């Protein structure tokens, strides 16, 4: 007897939920703009995302009716600002499912977060002859801070190679893990190609050898649901401005025990418990790493951005973007002389491409005249672009508020590029 025929079972009606993109677009005032006489088609989301009204209003609200310094005043506004700031920390905790809010450190962005780990954890744990392992897919922000640490300590930066599709070669990665490896620092999603790294497997391999892992989540957080406890990574970093939040604020997540064992990054106010000229006692985490007055309004607005994305539903966002990526990939492949650079099996909604005989910079200028914003160049990831045999590419990076009509506009723009260059 099949399950269907069992008495007492009734078929459940599962509502098929999907993103209401028309409604979503109304939240983003900038999407109504016209550029050079055309409706704006914003396809540079991997550089920075646009901001919904809710986030813009949170910034205005903070400066209009909440502005005060935090953690020190006894007056009404200071208490309000402090409560809002700590509520934002809680919202960010929820956003990546960290175990505790004190594991969320507010920083300027992913770049500062990686520098912080390199200069505090790195300076105390890495010595001459040790190795830091990254991949060939990294953004400069996950290369240069480690090179600086290596110069300071005599350690060595190792690079796990990729194949021609732009995917990490797992066997090579595993082979590079050795008793000298102190840290694996790896991007979740390549900003240049969109490749999604198998970070869970990488973390398992590293942890089985007792090696901690930092995950650069800057390009992952706008596209997929993140659960740092499920991932098990030791550090996770991201920038607010790529996930609908303001510029200048981001997050370093670290497991509490690791953060507690690390020396402070910068010295100053707020990061201390008591100061005398003889002895200063540092504050507890997260404040130990938050010297000086932070970007209070920015952190609050980032909390609102995190909640905005969660309310839309990260899984719905991922589904929608995956569909849009497939549509765009098919559409671009159909354009004569266009070649997609980076064809990993698992990709976020980023498409790097070239047009035969036309420099990416010229593509960018011509598309701009049609109101279409893309990025051109090496995308702050020179090694991976050069590894695949290019000096520069054009890159269209899609967000959940982009539409198939906008992809059609891109395709029409690319036909115009070919027409101009003959």
């Amino acid at each position, binding site marked *: 007897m099949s399950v269907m025929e069992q008495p007492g079972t009734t078929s459940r009606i599962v509502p098929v939920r999907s993103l209401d993109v028309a409604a979503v677009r109304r939240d983003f005032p900038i999407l109504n703009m016209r550029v050079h006489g055309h409706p704006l088609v914003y396809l540079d989301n991997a550089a920075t995302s646009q901001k919904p009204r809710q986030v813009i209003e949170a910034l205005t609200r903070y400066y209009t009716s909440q502005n005060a310094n935090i953690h020190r005043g006894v007056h009404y506004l200071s208490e309000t600002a402090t409560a809002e700031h700590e509520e934002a920390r809680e919202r960010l905790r929820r956003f990546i499912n960290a175990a505790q809010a004190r594991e969320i450190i507010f920083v300027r962005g992913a770049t500062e977060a990686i520098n912080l780990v390199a200069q505090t954890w790195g300076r105390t744990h890495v010595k001459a002859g040790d190795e830091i392992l990254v991949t060939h897919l990294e953004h400069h922000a996950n290369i240069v801070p480690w090179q600086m640490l290596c110069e300071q300590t005599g350690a060595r930066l190792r690079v796990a190679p990729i194949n021609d599709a732009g995917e990490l070669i797992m066997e090579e990665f595993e082979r590079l893990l050795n008793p000298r490896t102190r840290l694996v620092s790896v991007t979740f999603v390549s900003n240049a190609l969109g490749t999604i790294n198998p970070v869970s497997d990488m973390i398992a391999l590293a942890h089985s050898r007792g090696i901690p892992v930092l995950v650069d989540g800057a390009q992952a957080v706008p596209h997929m649901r993140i659960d740092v406890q499920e991932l098990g990574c030791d550090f996770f970093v991201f920038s607010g401005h790529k996930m609908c939040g303001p510029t200048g604020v981001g997050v370093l997540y670290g497991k509490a025990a690791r953060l507690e064992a690390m020396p402070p990054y910068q010295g100053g106010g707020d990061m201390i418990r008591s100061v005398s000229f003889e002895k200063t006692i540092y504050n507890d985490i997260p404040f130990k790493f938050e010297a000086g007055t932070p970007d209070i309004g920015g952190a609050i607005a980032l909390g609102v951005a995190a909640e905005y994305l969660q309310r839309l539903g990260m899984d719905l966002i991922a589904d929608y973007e995956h569909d849009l990526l497939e549509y765009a990939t098919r559409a671009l492949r159909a354009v004569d002389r266009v070649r997609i650079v980076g064809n990993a099996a698992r990709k976020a909604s980023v498409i790097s491409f070239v047009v035969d005989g*036309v*420099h*990416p*910079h*010229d593509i960018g*200028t*011509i598309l701009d*005249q049609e109101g279409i914003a893309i990025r051109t*160049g090496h995308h702050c990831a020179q090694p991976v672009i050069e590894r695949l045999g290019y000096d520069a590419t054009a890159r269209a990076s899609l967000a959940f508020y982009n539409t198939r009509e906008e992809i059609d506009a891109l395709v029409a723009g690319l036909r115009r590029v070919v027409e101009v260059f003959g």
Partner: protein
Amino acid sequence: MSNLRELYQELILDHNKNPRNFGRPPHPTHEAHGYNPLCGDRVTVYLSLDGDRVEDVRFEGKGCAISTASASMMTQMLKGKTVAECDAIFSNFHDLVTGKSCPVESLNQLGKLAVFGGVRDFPARVKCATLAWHTVQAALHGQTDPVSTE
């Protein structure tokens, strides 16, 4: 579209496709490297100076249409000129692409290079148009560090 046609004039597209004086000469007396980190454009300019006069000028490199055509047309323009004349032409060219007002006699001196006038409407592309020129200045005046437009 009219701005675009102004920028990508036929002459510029032609020099982009078929750059003139391209390649390393056997015995240059001077050379310099230029790099535009924004878009990754690279150019090397080779000079053969006979006293104060540019006997030959050639270039190599990879770049966008504006930077390639600018380098190509620059080599045609500078051949046979004195160092002082090269400096004056560069100054006029710079004024042209940045939209500074050019007296008629300066424009006349630029000749075919006037096709780069459209660059003034594309501020982000000024660096592309001037990369080879900054590089030739470095070669002429003995600067040894690579030129960067940043």
